[in-house]
């Protein structure tokens, strides 16, 4: 509804006001006249009419407003339900425009596409409500002033822009998956919203392989319930109870991965989903198809040369070629410096040292990781690892 209204106003604040006003009218007229057959369409039509009237009013006041209306919007007789998916897609592309700061893109998407209230977004990102409100206002002002268009990008720009949207959804998911600080490892609200967005995008862009890949990756969230034990303690992949994994969701993700892989050369989300699928299919950690996973990581690193990918690949190397080879790669990454401050680097190094029997060095590395983590469940896990790798007295 907001998405359909923005197309009339080209102004997010004005659209939000119009939508609120439509609800007020509904509260006034529905008890008297009865609820209309299609309440959603009724609200959308009313909100758009309010927005249009407000705009005409402003137009006569200022007399030099640019023409913002598309011709089709002049016809208000039909509630244009069939254009709503397209409107929603436009709204997503506007919120995830690369000309906006990434934090602002995430916040705008939550506020305007998912309808999450500003205080809740502020809470999720551990900033004050005032800070978050200011961030949203600044972003909306830039959209209006710099004229960030409310359109689905043209075919030549589309792949890059879809990738930007998928990145934002993935960041949102990652923020919820491993909350950087705080008591709860999983912030269900964020992961749930990210999953909803990925599903929405999959429906809106059925031909996009990476939209399918991202959805598959997030649906592998099926494992989430077993990432912590009954006490909320973090469990490593090899310790998790595989029988508790949601097989129905794993099957859904597998179908998406297979479809994406068949459709053409896989992108980074599809490759990550394929890796997650191999983990999910394996009867145990040891019986996982590690050579295949390593092949997928090689492909991933080629199209996405990120040090984080290289670090994850090192874990696969340790399972195929042994911890010594993997340690050499992790140490190379350490020298590279781009992952300085990234807590999973010392944590991975510690695991490898521990497996090589170099426990004193492992303890040092675990402690380095511990110093970088702000997540209570992770800290507890790492402290436990320090104790188990430490000298037995």
């Amino acid at each position, binding site marked *: 509804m907001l998405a359909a209204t923005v197309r009339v106003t080209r102004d997010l604040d004005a659209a939000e006001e119009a939508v609120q006003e439509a609800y007020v009218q509904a509260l006034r007229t529905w008890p008297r006249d009865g609820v209309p057959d299609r309440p959603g369409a009724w609200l959308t039509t009313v909100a758009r009419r309010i927005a249009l009237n407000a705009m005409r009013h402003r137009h006569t006041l200022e007399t030099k407003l640019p023409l913002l209306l598309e011709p089709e919007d002049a016809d208000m007789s039909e509630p244009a339900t069939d254009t709503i998916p397209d409107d929603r897609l436009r709204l997503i592309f506007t919120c995830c425009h690369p000309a906006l700061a990434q934090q602002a893109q995430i916040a705008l998407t939550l506020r305007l596409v998912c309808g999450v209230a500003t205080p809740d977004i502020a809470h999720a990102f551990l900033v004050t409500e005032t800070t978050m409100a200011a961030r949203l206002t600044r972003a909306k002002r830039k959209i209006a002033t710099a*004229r960030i*268009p409310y*359109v689905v*990008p043209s075919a030549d*720009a589309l792949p890059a822009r879809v990738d930007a949207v998928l990145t934002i959804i993935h960041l949102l998911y990652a923020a919820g998956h491993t909350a950087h600080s705080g008591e709860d490892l999983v912030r269900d609200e964020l992961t749930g919203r990210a999953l909803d967005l990925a599903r929405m995008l999959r429906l809106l862009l059925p031909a996009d392989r990476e939209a399918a890949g991202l959805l598959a990756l997030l649906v592998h969230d099926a494992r989430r319930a077993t990432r912590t034990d009954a006490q909320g303690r973090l469990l490593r992949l090899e310790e998790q109870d595989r029988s508790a994994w949601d097989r129905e969701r794993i099957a859904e993700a597998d179908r998406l991965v297979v479809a994406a892989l068949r459709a053409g050369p896989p992108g980074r989300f599809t490759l990550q989903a394929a890796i997650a699928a191999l983990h999910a299919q394996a009867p145990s950690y040891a019986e996982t198809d590690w050579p295949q996973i390593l092949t997928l990581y090689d492909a991933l690193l080629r199209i996405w040369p990120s040090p984080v990918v290289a670090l994850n690949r090192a874990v696969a190397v340790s399972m195929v070629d042994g911890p010594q080879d993997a340690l050499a790669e992790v140490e190379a990454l350490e020298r590279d410096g781009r992952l300085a401050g990234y807590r999973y680097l010392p944590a991975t190094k510690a695991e490898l040292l521990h497996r090589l029997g170099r426990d004193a060095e492992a303890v040092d590395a675990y402690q380095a990781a511990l110093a970088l983590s702000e997540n209570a469940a992770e800290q507890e896990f790492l402290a436990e690892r320090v104790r188990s790798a430490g000298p037995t007295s």
Partner: protein
Amino acid sequence: MAQYAVLIFERETPGGVADIPPEIMEAHGQLPERIAEQGGRTVAGLALEPSSTATAIRGDLVTDGPFIETKEALAGVFVIEARDLDHALALAKLTPIVSGGVEVRPLIGFEVVEAS
């Protein structure tokens, strides 16, 4: 159509204008034409002498050099008309650049109401 300023930032060379490669100069000459081909319009263009020739004034204090020292200095500005930010960014990407980049800024109050 809305107006945007495209600010060109380049790493400065000792010889100033003389150091600009001829193909870059030529591409600058063709820029208005290329912008027009993509549905935009060039309104104005300014090329600046090197920042070593600049003089800054703060209050009563007059000093040698640009107001803000940056690794890549402001080398030129042009003003374009574009449909929206995406269009403006596409046009700005046509700017010939040696080693720096451009900044795109919307301009205040020069919106042109098109007769429909």
